């Protein structure tokens, strides 16, 4: 069964409005875990059969992958990686990226995925924003707290 991101957003809204703390949904190959942390819901989607771009290939080894040096200017802020893992810009190989420079996103729109041991953590910004710059290349390791995008409130 395929679950679109619209479906996920729907589920998120339902969970957000309810008193449920955690939802686990398994349909065939698809596993969906939604966990509430504080007031805002955060979603984790795992699907063993459709890893995002290059998830199965070893990540470019050894070479350090520092963020490009650009700093957030006045009125902008850095979106930081909430965990160490592999950064993916698209939901699966060949799919269009979640966002590009200039994209405007809603608070719950997924802007990238960070994979930690096959667990796909969808990253949202939590407010309406415009993507100013993407600091990390696809399929690179990102460190905890590493700036991954520069965004401006929209």
């Amino acid at each position: 069964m395929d679950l679109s991101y619209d479906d996920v957003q729907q589920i998120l809204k339902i969970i957000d409005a309810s008193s449920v703390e955690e939802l686990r949904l398994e349909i065939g190959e698809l596993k969906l875990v939604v966990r509430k942390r504080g007031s805002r819901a955060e979603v984790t989607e795992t699907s063993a059969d459709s890893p995002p771009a290059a998830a199965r290939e070893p990540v470019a080894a050894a070479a350090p992958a520092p963020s490009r040096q650009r700093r957030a200017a006045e009125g902008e802020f850095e979106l930081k990686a909430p965990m160490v893992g592999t950064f993916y810009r698209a939901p699966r190989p060949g799919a269009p990226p979640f966002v590009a420079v200039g994209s405007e996103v809603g608070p719950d729109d997924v802007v990238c995925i960070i994979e930690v041991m096959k667990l796909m953590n969808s990253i949202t910004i939590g407010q309406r924003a415009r993507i100013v710059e993407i600091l990390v290349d696809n399929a690179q390791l990102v460190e905890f707290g590493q700036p991954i995008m520069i965004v401006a409130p929209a």
Partner: protein
Amino acid sequence: MNTVLVANRGEIAVRVIRACRALGLRTVAVYSEADRGAVHTRLADRAVCIGPAPAARSYLDVAALLATARGTGADAVHPGYGFLAENADFAAACVEAGLTFVGPSAEAIRAMGDKVHARERAAALGVPTVPGSRAPVGDVAEAQAVARAVGYPVLLKAAAGGGGRGMRVVRSASELSAAFTAARAEAEAAFGDDRLYVERFLEHVRHVEIQILADRFGAAVQLGERDCSVQRRHQKLLEEAPSPAVTPAIRAAMGDAALTLVADIKYENAGTVEFVLDPATDRFYFIEMNTRIQVEHPVTEMVTGVDLVAAQLRVAAGERLPFAQGDVTIAGHALECRINAEDPDAGFRPSPGRIARWSPPDGTGLRVDTHIEAGAVVPPFYDSLLAKVVAHGRDRENAIARMAEALRRFDVDGVATTLPLHRRILAHPDFVACRIHTRWVEDELGR
């Protein structure tokens, strides 16, 4: 094996990275936000921030460590000591992720991790164990029965325990009930496992442990003993090799006992088999096996000339042990003092803070393993070990003299340390004359 992820911090991360470099291996350091800029992160070929300060979300986060190994191309993991070093699930997860775990198999860690099973196994092999319950005791009545049989004083001990938690000395039947309840609650809180066993409490004993090394081809050697009797509340403070209380006959018997256990569990890599030695009778008893490199490994390195961490890496990479039992020789005497950021004048209260001045000693026969430098911050989140000062001499007297001189010259400012305590121990006639036991620090130097 090309690139080793060092899943630890502090002096042991530095020690492992240096050993890797000496063998031409690349290294990946990991660190929490509290350790940003730490020495181990600068020595490694690459350093990755894996999480915030609390260890549960950084150094103990298995997923973060494995993701980092994959993302950096590491093909091996060295766990150091503490943190995940004796976590069988972590060892298994590394292997499952295609990584070489620099340590024993998950099965061997499990076999020795449960102290009750470890003791049963040792006893079945004819290795002497302390008289006590063969299995965890279910309730106070059962504990009473065992205590009566082995005789007071007895020790209540958590099956999953370590570091003195979940332990109570009980001197009479009337104290047992309260102590049992308290030890059980402490064991449950500390380990999530409230099983206790009861054993005869041996007084005025020494803690003596055998260092072993084994490869995957079944070859194993013992590298003599370390005496770790200078402890405070079961925390080792000062260690030495060889033990001044061990005769050649005890050494041989203890070494054989250790190797019997190692062969039985098909142990691979470095490990330590711990015993208590009763100097009054020269009898020794198995307590537990530590399935990792130990903090105090340098004293063995100093007297045997064997680089234990390098040996761990070689054995993990599939090499054979490069020497046999007959090649192991013990030369001279070595001492190690653990310099902790703790205030011995204030109940050993941890003393985190910024190191204002740091001038460790150096000289003939001295080695200092540390991750500290002037300006470094000792975070409050982890253990308080700052440095291990190791002195080697031609005999015990010479090693003590070298250590005393080294500690006189060791200049630290900014945090309180255990240096003054070590200076007192080294000058104490009981220590010099080998009249100490595992409770000597509390009895003689405690307040």
